[in-house]
C-alpha cells in the first residue's frame, strides 16, 4: 500500500487514543461496576486506532480536548464490526 502523506493522529479533530492494559481494564470496570459490553463502543477498523494493534475486547482510553474541562477522559470498548 502507498504510504499516506498525512497522519490522522495529528489532525485537530482526533483526540489521543491509548490502549489500556489488562489490569487497567479490570480496574476500570470495577470502578464503575459495569461489564465490558456496557462501555461505549469503537469499531476495530476505526482509522484513529489503526496504529495501536488492537483486537476485539480491548479498551481504548481517549483523552479528549474539551472546551469546558480542557481535558476529559473517555473509554470505548473495541467491537468487531
Amino acid at each position, binding site marked *: 500500500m502507498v504510504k*499516506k*502523506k*498525512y*497522519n*490522522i493522529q*495529528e*489532525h*485537530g*479533530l*482526533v*483526540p489521543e*487514543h491509548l490502549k489500556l492494559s489488562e489490569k487497567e481494564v479490570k480496574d476500570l470496570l470495577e470502578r464503575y461496576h459495569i461489564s465490558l459490553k456496557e462501555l*461505549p*463502543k*469503537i*469499531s476495530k477498523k*476505526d*482509522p*484513529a*486506532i489503526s496504529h495501536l494493534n488492537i483486537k476485539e475486547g480491548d479498551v481504548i482510553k*481517549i483523552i*479528549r480536548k*474539551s*472546551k*469546558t*474541562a*480542557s*481535558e*476529559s477522559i*473517555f473509554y*470505548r470498548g473495541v*467491537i468487531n*464490526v
Partner: protein
Amino acid sequence: MSIFTEYKNKLPRKILNEVKEYTKGMSEAKIKKVLAATMEEYENTKVEPGECVGVVSAESIGEPGTQMTLNTFHFAGVAEMNVTMGLPRIIEILDGRSNLKTPMMEIYLKAPYSQGKDIRKIALSIKETLLNEVVSEFMINIAENSIELRMNNEKMKELGLTENNIISSIKSGIKGYNIRSSKEAIVLKSKTKEETINKVYIDKEKIKKIHLSGVKGISQVLPVRRGEEYIIITSGTNLKAILELDYVDSTRTTTNDIFEIQKILGVEAARQSIINEVFKVIESQGLDVDIRHIMLVADTMCNSGEVKGITRYGVVSQKSSVLARASFETPIRHIIGAALIGEEDKLTSVVENVMLNQPVPVGTGLPDLVTQVKK
C-alpha cells in the same frame, strides 16, 4: 507542586489550572484550604444521579431552535455557493444524514501558501474540471460518425491544461474511438463502421463528464482571508484526496460531512465535528445554548462506534425496550416484530413505565430496594 497532585484525578484540568493561577504566592496551608473549598463546590455543581439530562438537553436545544431562521444563507460574492444554515442544518446533523444539501470544506494551507502565495493557482488546481468546461463547441459529423471538439484555448491556458493532457484523459475516459487532433479541434472517430447516430450522440453526452484535472467532487472554490491567513472554502467535499495534497495543512482541514470524517478520521473526530457544527449554527444565529447539551447529544449519537442519527433507524432502534421503541415512530411494526420473536421488556427505562402507569426511574423514582443475598 505536591498539593495539586492529590486533586489531579478529582478536579477537571481547567479548574485546577485556574486555582493554580489564583493561588500564586499563597502559603501552602492556604492553598490547601482553597482546594478543599473548590472540591466541595465542584461536587455540589455535579449533576445528581437520576437527573433526566436528556430531557433537559432536548428542551434546551429545542426552545431556542424555534427562533432559528429557516433559510439557506448565501455566501457574499459568489452566487452559486450557498450554505445550509439554521434549523435545516441542525436537523440534517442530528438526523445523521449522509447526503448533505451543501457539502463544504475548509482547506487550510501550509506556511508560504497560507500567506497568499499562489492562492489563486492552488484554488483552481483543486477545483474539479470536466471536459465540457474547456470545450467551446461539440459537433457531431453524421457522415463520418465522429465527434469534433472545438477547444476554448483561453480557458485551457488558465487551467494549465495542454491538448495532449486532454487527449489522454479522453482516451482513458471512453473506449471505441480513435482520437487525433487536427488544426483547431480534437476529433473522435468511431472504430466500428456500423455505429448508429444514436450511440454517437449518447457518447457525446458521456464525454462531457470526463474528469480532466482537480480533485473529484469539488465543484466550487473560494479563497478567503480569515484572520491572519488565507484559506480555501469549497463546495463539494473529498477529504481524503485533499488531505493527501502537499500544500494542505492536514491537521486543520475539515469538511462539514460528518460521515466522511467518521470514515477517514474515526468516530471520536466525528463526535467532535458534530459538536462543532451544531454549535456553529447556534452561535451564528445569536442564540445561547450550553455546549454540554450538544456534547450529550453527540455522545449519544456516537455511542455505538459509528454515527447514528436521532431517528427510528438510528439511536432509537438501539433501545432495549420494545415499548420505548414503539412509542417513538411506527409503533405497530415494532410490536409485531417483537411478538414474532418473543422479545422481553425489562421495563428499566422511562417511556415503558409511563405507558404502564408505574413510577419512572428518574430522580427520586430511581432508588430501589434490593435484597442482598447471603453468601
